[in-house]
């Protein structure tokens, strides 16, 4: 009890030390973003870059408004976004459901690892587009092949991080719990799982970021909606303003979704953020 009181500094000092650092870092972030925007505006205002490659910010903003209100090739922005996010969630959720338990098992049981590790390690470095051509041949041009690609892309970081987390459990904790008479179920729920959760959460964030990058590849062949498809289609018609706008949409929604995952992390591993 006393050690806890001594460990956390008095609130007033903690606030003082915390706030100044926060202000400088926020200022740096804002400054970095603002200078990039200024650079972009200057490059296009003084025609230093071909407007075909880098349209001015105003043009990109206009295309954002247009796709938001009028649509791109018959579908509004939110419909494209819904199509893409639907695919990502389906693939990612399936990968979580399959990958995390698989990774834990692989970490806890060397025989399971021997069976599945070669498969995962083999296909992991393969470029997604190459895998995708095979998937389209097997699963057709509909959503099945796209979700399958996203699933395959999301799986390795999840299973590997879960496996590593399971293998790095402190055996001291296990022995202590066993000494106190824990059953296997209690061991799993109170020692193994909480130890692994931080590693699993990190894996989830990495996996999500990676799945996101594969989205455009999955929407190249025979899609009719989706932000990745919109970017690919616009590039065929050299509409770089739509391409850049689409990239911004993907980037910003990615940031938002990553924030949600971090909040989820705080929820299930609150002891790391005390």
């Amino acid at each position: 009890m006393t050690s806890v009181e001594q460990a956390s500094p008095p609130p007033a000092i903690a606030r003082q030390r915390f706030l100044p650092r926060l202000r400088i870092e926020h200022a740096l972030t804002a400054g970095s973003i603002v200078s990039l925007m200024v650079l972009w505006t200057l490059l296009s205002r003084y025609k230093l870059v071909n407007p075909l490659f880098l349209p001015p910010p105003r043009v990109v903003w206009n295309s954002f408004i247009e796709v938001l209100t009028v649509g791109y090739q018959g579908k509004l922005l939110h419909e494209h976004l819904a199509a893409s996010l639907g695919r990502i969630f389906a693939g990612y959720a399936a990968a979580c459901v399959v990958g995390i338990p698989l990774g834990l098992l692989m970490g806890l049981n060397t025989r399971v690892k021997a069976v599945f590790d070669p498969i995962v390690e083999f296909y992991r470095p393969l470029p997604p587009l190459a895998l995708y051509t095979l998937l389209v041949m097997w699963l057709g041009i509909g959503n099945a092949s796209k979700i399958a690609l996203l699933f395959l892309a999301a799986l390795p970081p999840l299973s590997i991080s879960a496996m590593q987390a399971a293998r790095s459990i402190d055996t001291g904790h296990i022995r202590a719990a066993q000494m106190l008479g824990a059953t296997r179920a209690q061991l799993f729920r109170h020692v193994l799982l909480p130890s692994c959760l931080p590693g699993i959460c990190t894996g989830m964030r990495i996996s999500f970021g990676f799945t996101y990058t594969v989205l455009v590849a999955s929407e190249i062949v025979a899609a009719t909606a989706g932000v990745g498809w919109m970017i690919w289609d616009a590039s065929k018609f050299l509409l770089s303003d739509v391409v850049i706008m689409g990239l911004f949409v993907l980037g910003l929604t990615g940031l938002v979704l990553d924030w949600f995952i971090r909040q989820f992390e705080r929820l299930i591993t609150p002891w790391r953020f005390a």
Partner: protein
Amino acid sequence: MACRLAGCRLAGFRLAGFGIAALIALIALVHGASAQTPSKVVIGYLDLVSAQLVTKALGLHEKEMGLPVEWVAFGSGGDLNRGVAAGQLNFGGVGNPPATLGVSRGLPYKGIFVIDMLGPVESLVVRADKHIDKPQDLVGKTMAAPFGSTTHYMTIAYLRSAGVDPTSVKLLDMAPNDAVAAWLRGDIDAAYVWEPALNKMVTNGGKILMDSGSMAKAGYPTWDIGVVMDDFVTQHPDLVTKFVKSECAAIDYWLTKPEQTAAIIAKELKLPLDDTRRMMAGTTMVSCRDQIGADYLGTSNHKGKFVDTLVATATFLTDQKRLPKVEPRESYEKFIEPKFLETAVGQ
């Protein structure tokens, strides 16, 4: 954390100095290299049945220009446009819809000779067992066409001219070879593509509903035009003339020696000879002498009908919201550059 070591700032300057010197050297090297004879010529081509396959097989460009040639294949004009935007090519070939796109987007190229006038070599193939006998039957069906190409344009023109709303057909953007795979799997009911991909669909339960020859007669001509980059013209105009000369020689070869041409194309595209002859009959080669006539590119003083086709195509695509607006006629006239043909033909 600021760098506190004493030599750090000096080292930083030295590093920056090296970096800038290296950059200058690199720029000088690249710039210097391009001003003299190029080390090789990069030609983008569409994988379809044309006399360029003869040029490629017989090595005519290597012989005429005396330089190594790198041939880069593209699935459609839209893809080739992207390669042009990326600065990857010296020469290329596009259909009239991608050409209007290029003019609209200010792509730095000029059309210098006619690759082909498209006929039945590009056709709309439908599944024979789906009872699709007229354009209205396509409503609700799944159809593939490479977006931004001649056949995409033909698909929409065909549907619109029959009073069918193109959005009522599930139109998918697929390169011809991807469309073949989808056809064989049964994922699509129709496709508007060109040979040799077309043949693979026809022989697997397909029948032809419409072709570009009939569409041309109905007032929607399509053709492929050879293009050259503006900076290549500025730096090596003599090579451009040689390029056109070789292509003209290949076209003459096609027109005067059809059997040998068929053999060459059959080998290049790995097709049986009969199919090759049929495909050759489905496209029209225009001799260079005729190309400077009023029906095609025209002369430098009086550009020909190709300008009208470009304007009509642009108007159509603008209607379809694929282009922001129709450029003034001068832009399309500027794109058509017959002077290399004139030199090659000896006018």
